[in-house]
């Protein structure tokens, strides 16, 4: 049974974290990052060839977390595997103790470090959610009966800061129809904008974990505004990061902004999903400062 599912059912404020596997075989840093999150978060997402930059696998990392008594959320993108491989990996994941799967379409190959690779996109996020639903029901996508079925807790993503937001909300409804049981959002920095979004989707009845990405510098914030769709870092936060470079570098500003955002969204949604991008050691103090320990 998924601990994440149980925690969301208890209706408390749920915190999830995230680690990214390395480019190479030295997995120790990613596992250390996960150790910082132990006891602080309900589950830890493991990114799947994030940003289309080739790296160590999500499935293997999730398995290593299970071995260490940590609850992973297996992120799965549709860019690199067709429906045969996706279904096969889902079956493997379940047997390896993985219970949560986050279904994503995936960034396009040309945005990553292997732009000449062949994009697959046999399915997209909604199709992958349907695929998980089919497997849960004991049949594969071709309708063939399975010998043993995986009871996954499947989630999806949504970008509350996208403009216009209506296509995102319609897509969210579609993903719910396809089987999404929870949502983790793209990074949120503007609490008022997020409140407007939540007002429109709260009737859908599916828990939303607000995305918190730690801001490491003014440059990173500007880069996200220019290059990451659906992310909007307000100018006042960029100015704050630029005003005191040492404070930004130490992570103190990132922590402050995260704490303010979490406090701002606490009454609006069912939890937060913190994406520390390698600054996982800062997560315990964020959780402590927002009073969630």
């Amino acid at each position, binding site marked *: 049974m998924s601990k994440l599912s149980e925690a969301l059912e208890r209706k408390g404020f749920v915190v999830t974290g995230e680690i990214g596997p390395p480019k190479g075989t030295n997995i120790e840093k990613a596992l250390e990052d996960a150790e910082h999150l132990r006891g602080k978060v309900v589950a830890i997402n493991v990114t799947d060839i994030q940003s289309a930059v080739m790296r160590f696998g999500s499935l293997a990392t999730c398995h290593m977390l299970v071995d260490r008594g940590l609850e992973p959320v297996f992120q799965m993108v549709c860019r690199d595997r067709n429906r045969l491989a996706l279904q096969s990996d889902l079956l493997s994941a379940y047997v390896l103790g993985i219970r949560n799967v986050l279904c994503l379409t995936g960034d396009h190959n040309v945005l990553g470090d292997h732009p000449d690779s062949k994009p697959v996109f046999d399915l997209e996020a909604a199709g992958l959610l349907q695929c998980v639903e089919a497997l849960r029901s004991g049949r594969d996508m071709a309708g063939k009966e399975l010998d043993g079925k995986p009871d996954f807790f499947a989630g999806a993503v949504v970008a509350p800061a996208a403009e216009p937001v209506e296509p995102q909300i319609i897509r969210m409804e579609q993903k719910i129809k396809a089987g999404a049981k929870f949502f983790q959002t793209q990074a949120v920095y503007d609490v008022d904008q997020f409140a407007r979004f939540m007002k429109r989707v709260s009737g859908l009845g599916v828990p939303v974990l607000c995305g918190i990405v730690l801001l490491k510098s003014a440059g990173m914030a500007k880069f996200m505004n220019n290059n990451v*769709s659906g992310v909007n870092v307000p100018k006042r936060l960029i100015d704050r990061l630029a005003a005191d470079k040492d404070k930004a570098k130490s992570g103190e500003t990132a922590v402050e902004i995260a704490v303010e955002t979490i406090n701002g969204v606490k009454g609006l949604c069912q939890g937060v999903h913190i994406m520390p991008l390698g600054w996982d050691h800062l997560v315990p103090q964020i959780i402590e400062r927002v009073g969630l320990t």
Partner: protein
Amino acid sequence: MLVTERKPDDEILASVARDSKLFLVGCNGCHAACESRGAEDLPALKTLLEGAGKTVTGWFTVDFLCDKSLVRSRLRVFTPEIMDADSVLVATCGVGIQCVADSVVKRTRPACNTINIGGSHGTWGSTERCAECGDCLLDRTGGICPITNCSKSMVNGPCGGTTGDGKCEVDRKRDCGWYRIYTRLKDMNALDQLREVTPPKKYGKYLPPYEVMRSEHWAVDPALPAADPAPPGAAVPAGGPRGKGRPK
């Protein structure tokens, strides 16, 4: 020069389930030139629809639906009949269907699947493209093809990569296909369509049977053996010509 096949009757009837009045458009171009079978029978389509209790407000065929100026001038004559209809059912290739969709403010529905286009996108002087996927989705997408307009060819969308000005993050000059679909459906008050989940694509239909890759058009190439011509009016075998070869 392209090859189309009529969609199965039940798929056509399902797509027009909520429409009571339809306008039909057909194309004689590639049908006449290279045995494309999908567009040849508007009367049969009319009979099918009327048998299901629908009204056909009017219909016309044109020699090449991919000829922009011809299509628009011919469509204009039928403005009252088109506007009186709930949707326009088009029996031709993916390019022709998108050309009609781009020319009328009406739900435009495909009556055919495009199997093979042989490298030709007709004479349409615009950006509409058909990927010859053999399983036309234009009915669900406001007549804008997500296979050729979305950089990921997503059958449900948009992904999270749409920029604020409706472009694709893969190429900021390129329109996000799904943003265009969203806008088109919104204009037609048909956004509910986007809430439906389109099932995964049947990629098995992508691979055209060798027989249909060659047409009369290419058969003039002396290096190729002559294609077996289908007898005029020959029926497509059940399930279409795929894997079974052309009717002898």
